[in-house]
């Protein structure tokens, strides 16, 4: 087990380093940082002065190591737009995004797993077909559009829910449904396939033969095995949600890091964009590592293999 995990951790570290280099390159691609920092009216001398002040006249690899060194000490630089520290900006908004992502994931799991299990126990029944149809719709729907439709129906016509803001729990209902719908189909399909495979296996026949109740067979024996790939997918989905919430946050004007990233791209405030890209990537890398550990713990074939 330890060998497997060390191997995974090493790959994760390597990927993290690469992602940080890509994030750093993204900032350089965005144009001349010094002239952006110095402002529109700056003269050539002032730009050169700014470049020197911020160390932008040094070789690129030194700038990269400098950036990594500062990042490791909690300094991600300052926003070009508000001049606030990026760590402060992210810290201020990360709560909203995490709350939205976790609520969406819970929403998706609450619908996807029961539906997947029921669909697998009755293949080709109406409920199987209905859940498949739901998955197809969920996959094909542009989620920003779904959000707008929810706003039109529940926010404006029926006036049940507030259409923007972050103050109250009810602000999160429509964004949660919108974002949750985008990850629900994959989880449902995977649960269904996993359950179909599990229900077809010998140990389930044995469990049934020895007279266990249907509930016990389904949930204690079959689901336990079928859930393994779903655990990985859930971790991956959470990482995806953290990065993918940019669209939904923009539709509902939720003040999370996705919305911050979107605004920063519009303002060409690339230090913020770069930090969010690297930050979200690191969350994803960490989540997949954790899911590998959970899987190794749940599945002796991986743990001992």
């Amino acid at each position, binding site marked *: 087990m330890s060998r497997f995990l060390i191997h995974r951790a090493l*790959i994760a570290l*390597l*990927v*993290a380093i*690469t*992602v940080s280099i*890509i994030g750093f390159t*993204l900032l350089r*691609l*965005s*144009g001349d940082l010094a002239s952006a920092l110095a402002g529109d009216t700056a003269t050539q001398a002032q730009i050169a002065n700014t470049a020197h002040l911020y160390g932008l006249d040094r070789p690129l690899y030194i700038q990269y190591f400098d950036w990594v060194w500062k990042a490791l000490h909690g300094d991600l630089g300052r926003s070009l737009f508000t001049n606030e520290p990026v760590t402060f900006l992210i810290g201020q908004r990360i709560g909203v995004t995490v709350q939205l992502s976790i609520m969406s994931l819970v929403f998706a799991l609450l619908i996807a797993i029961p539906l997947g299990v029921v669909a697998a126990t009755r293949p080709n029944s109406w409920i199987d077909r209905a859940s498949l149809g739901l998955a*197809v*719709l969920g*996959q*094909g*729907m*542009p*989620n*920003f*559009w779904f959000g*707008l*439709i929810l*706003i*039109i129906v529940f926010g*404006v016509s029926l006036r049940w829910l507030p259409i923007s803001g972050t103050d109250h729990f009810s602000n999160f209902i429509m964004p949660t449904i919108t974002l949750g719908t985008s990850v629900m189909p994959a989880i449902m399909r995977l649960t269904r396939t996993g359950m179909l495979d599990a229900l077809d296996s010998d140990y389930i026949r044995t469990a049934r033969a020895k007279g266990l109740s249907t509930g016990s067979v389904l949930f204690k024996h079959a689901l336990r095995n079928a859930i393994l790939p779903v655990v990985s997918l859930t971790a*991956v989905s959470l*990482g*995806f949600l*953290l*990065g*993918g919430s*940019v*669209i939904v946050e*923009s539709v509902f004007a939720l003040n999370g890091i996705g919305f911050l*990233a*979107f605004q920063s*791209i*519009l303002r*060409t405030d*690339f230090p913020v*964009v770069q930090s*969010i*890209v690297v930050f*979200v*990537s690191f969350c*994803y*890398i960490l989540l*997949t590592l954790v899911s590998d550990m959970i899987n190794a713990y749940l599945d002796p074939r991986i743990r001992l293999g």
Partner: protein
Amino acid sequence: MTSIERDRVIISSPAPTYEIEIEAPSPHMIMRRRALTHPGFLFGATIVLATVLIALCAPLLTPYDPYAQDLSQRLIPPVWALKGSWAHLLGTDAMGRDYLTRLMYGARVSLTIGFGAAAIAGIIGTSLGLIGGYFGGWVDSVVMYLVNVKLALPGILVALSLIEVFGGSVFSVTLILGVLFWDRFIVVTRSVTQQTRVADYVTAAEAVGASRLRIILGEVLPNVLNHIIVIASLEMAVAILVEAALSFLGLGIRPPTPSWGLMISEGRNFMFFQPYLVAVPGIAILVLVVAINMLGDGIRDITAPEGRN
């Protein structure tokens, strides 16, 4: 199960000899039969084909110019609404442009970007998957490491930043999406290649002394091809959705090009009074994406070897 071999049964009777050929269906006939009895495939193929035709023939199908603004004709509701007019079946937008015309020309943008991005991603992903799966060892490790890096990056955020840097033309959006969404091609191609490279005919080809390039292209690639088509259809659908999202955020295709995502974004300001401005392009995206997904699933079912689903 019918045998693939061709059986000849000769029935000899006192008078003339009848030769009856009992012909087992050829693989092509099996595929055709499966295709014609597969509702998902038929639905998907029809919609996709119709969309392609509409996109190609848009100038013949509509008398209007998708860019021509006419402020005296602005915000006419669709024909089924109370104040609708037969002159504009789906009404007009805030600039007085015919909405159906914009929708038809918008199909061009969606299809071009979807197809182009899937093709670019397919070429990158399939080559890397073939190389990783065939050579294994450290080459494979490098390929998988690339996949891990790609998966870790938040795709939409990176796409948004790149488009902001390189501009939002149809060409650059296609290129950026193609360069960002190749991971699924790698994963699938790689695993099929791993299975294929230990097959007897590959060993035989190696024994005959065929070059690696020839084995990869001649023996392995044909086995991967139908998987690639399925993934390509999925990625085409994803690219269409992402393009719509980027354009909706104002960081994809730039106005006045008619893109469905951009149309939703422009309609958003009027959505409380004219909800069709948002509903119509959204439904168009939904129908096209669902159709492409069904077409892909259908191709997978149809080309699957006998007895497998």
